[in-house]
């Protein structure tokens, strides 16, 4: 059971790291990260893409 716990924590942290790396490396991922961490844009709004369909942003 201890092994499952250690491996479980490892898998969860690994996925978190990959998520952050992938999102920080792609333009569409940066938009998502901004949304996720509520980073405000110059206009003071939470995100320019808040209610815009993903594909309309023209991002990969």
């Amino acid at each position, binding site marked *: 059971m201890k*092994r*499952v716990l250690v491996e479980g924590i490892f898998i969860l942290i690994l*996925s978190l790291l990959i998520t952050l790396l992938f999102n920080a490396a792609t333009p569409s991922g940066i938009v998502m990260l901004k949304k*996720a961490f509520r980073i405000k844009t110059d206009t003071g709004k939470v995100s320019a893409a808040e209610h815009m369909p993903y594909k309309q942003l023209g991002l990969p």
Partner: protein
Amino acid sequence: MISFIFRIIIGSIFLVSGLAKISDPVLFMLALREFQLFPEIIVPLTAIYLPWLEFILGLFVTTGLLYRTSSFILACLNFAFMIAILSVIIRGIEIDCGCFGLLADMLKVPDAADMKTVARNLLFTGMSLYIFRAKKTVFSLESYITKNRTKDRHIEHGG
């Protein structure tokens, strides 16, 4: 052998569904929002994290690397999905479950949050728990590595 078949089925399903959600996280975020279960601050975080978790768990279960722990996490995830869908049904909200992201639209697979989806999640939970409880499985990367390590130790002790 059964655990191997279950591994391939569950693993590939989660690989594909993870990839589908990774390719359009906004669609998944909108689907999550419709559940009206999570606070607004958690929804985007979950929308970017959960697809990658599903993808990695699917990869681990398919290849047989850390497959026992991965299948246990998958069982927990499926159980949580089942509870979320049941709560939506009880509250009378008619939505798509968002389980397969873009793929549901592309392949025109029914993706509504209904009792069929609950039954499917129950089946996946059972299959994942079977893999977790199985004492042995074939064609797994983990058993291959363990076998090689044991062989190396034997050679070291013999030499």
